[in-house]
């Protein structure tokens, strides 16, 4: 049973990672920087709870705020790059942030233990949940409160005017401008929101793994972040969730039990290849999304 709760935690944390890229991708900005904001969220929250003894309910919003601010700042220069150049630029940003944490050292003695990030060794002893005796089930539930909250927010956004504006920008910037949409405001805001969500995800991630180090926040995680929404389709938040369930739940956790060994990334890579060849627009593309919506919601407007 504990194994399932652990799996639920992993899926929850990865879903938030994917959702952090969802909004940004909708505006047509392909970002490889979400892992960087995830890392910021992780380190900030972990430092708050571990080094300064802050309550986790304060640490998470604080982490989100910091990540949001950084992402907002990054959003402005990001405006200068179109398409592939943005991928490269955000990749470079991600690497720079990772390098930063590789060298980041801030330790405080607590009792006879040193806590805090220790550069290349990473940040150990993020024991907030353990110290307070949370069970695996409780941690899973805690994580999923945030997952559901974020999904609800994004789902509502998709159906509101904001969602339509985001997608209009993603589809045709010139037309969007010509009907009065302020591209800068929309694109930077999307970046900032993505950063905030990544901050929440990173904060939860740090506390559920209890140990983070810079290598976790590299290109592979950045890829996961955009792979989930792209594979799942950018028309519905549920697509992202399904993609996470499929990749993490089935392939990475499930199959190795059968095949054995550390084959997760291998399978991940192959799966992406397969998925992109078979369904280039994602599992839940616009057609499927409308069909699903038609099943559940009997409203006049999409």
């Amino acid at each position, binding site marked *: 049973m504990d194994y399932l709760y652990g799996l639920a935690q992993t899926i929850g944390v990865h879903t938030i990672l994917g959702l952090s890229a969802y909004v940004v991708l909708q505006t047509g900005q392909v970002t490889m920087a979400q892992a960087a904001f995830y890392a910021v969220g992780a380190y900030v929250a972990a430092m708050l709870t571990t080094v300064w003894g802050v309550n986790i309910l304060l640490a998470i919003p604080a982490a989100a705020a910091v990540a949001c601010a950084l992402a907002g700042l990054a959003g402005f220069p990001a405006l200068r790059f179109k398409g*592939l150049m943005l991928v490269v630029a955000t990749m470079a940003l991600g690497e720079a942030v990772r390098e930063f944490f590789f060298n980041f050292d801030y330790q405080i003695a607590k009792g006879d233990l040193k806590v805090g990030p220790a550069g290349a060794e990473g940040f150990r002893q993020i024991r907030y949940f353990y110290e307070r005796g949370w069970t695996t089930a409780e941690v899973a539930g805690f994580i999923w409160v945030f997952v559901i909250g974020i999904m609800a927010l994004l789902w509502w956004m998709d159906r509101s005017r904001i969602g339509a504006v985001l997608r209009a920008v993603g589809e045709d910037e010139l037309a969007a401008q010509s009907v009065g949409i302020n591209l800068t405001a929309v694109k930077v805001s999307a970046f900032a929101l993505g950063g905030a969500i990544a901050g929440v995800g990173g904060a939860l991630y740090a506390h559920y793994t209890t140990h983070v180090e810079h290598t976790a926040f590299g290109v592979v995680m950045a890829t996961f972040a955009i792979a989930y929404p792209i594979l799942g389709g950018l028309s519905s938040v549920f697509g992202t969730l399904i993609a996470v369930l499929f990749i993490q739940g089935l392939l990475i956790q499930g199959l190795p039990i059968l095949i054995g060994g550390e084959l997760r990334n291998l399978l991940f890579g192959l799966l992406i290849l397969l998925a992109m060849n078979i369904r280039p627009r994602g599992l839940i593309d616009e057609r499927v999304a409308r069909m699903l919506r038609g099943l559940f919601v009997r409203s006049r407007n999409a």
Partner: protein
Amino acid sequence: MVLIQAIIDGILVGTTYALIGIGFTLIFGVMHKLNLAFAAASIAGAFLSLIVWQNLKWLPVPAVFLIAALGAGVLGYVIYVACFRFIPLKSPLATLMATVGMLIFLDEVVTHVSDGKAQDYPGMLPTARWVLGPLDLRVDYLLVFAISVVAMLLLLALLFRTRLGIATRAVAQQPVAAQLCGISLDRTNAATFVISGVLGGLAGAMIGSSAELLSNLLPLQLTVKGLIVTVIGGLGSIPGAVVAGLLVGAFEKGLETWSVLARDLCVMLLIFVFLVAKPAGIFGKLNVRD
């Protein structure tokens, strides 16, 4: 003096970065899409030659390099089929993701094959030195330089003096018109991937031999470095990739004399400076379609 020495070393080794940059830029020029798996395929080719060499110790060193180049060339074709051939052109995200998927796959394969640590790789006269006045040049670096330059010249000859080369340049400029002239898009693209793969495999072998070590961290490291070179040089520009490769090589080795941290941070800074100041790169045109 140490600095000048380091910079010269950097320029010599920078030719390998130039080759990787050329590979990225060649594919971008023809398909208007990035093959993010390129550097990983180059290193995978090098590792393939490593395995062969480990089992056939009697193989002469040049043959090992050849295997790396050919192996990477085959991988190039595989990447073309797996990531580009069947995905419709109007899904740019899909091809990008596919190459990322391939990158992750190849990186994992390399990690497994190398057991997670760096492996020994044959060097070229690693202890020989050529003393030129105040400079103490490593012969193997000079060989790397020479080999890479020859490869680049062969590529230019291919592009400008053969039918395949003309076809490649035609497809890069006007794919539809090229087809109307009877050029097979599929075969030309495939050939481009194979050729760039061969260049990349050679570069991988050179990188390994100059350090006498093939590191399992190379696929990702080289991807980032290759992209930096491509961007600084300008997407789609071969001379740009060459200049940028030498520049980054010189920068790296020069900064290494100061500290490793400075090296990493400054290379990052370099790409930011370029992206902000000259997003088109040294020779590029800001006419990126995607």
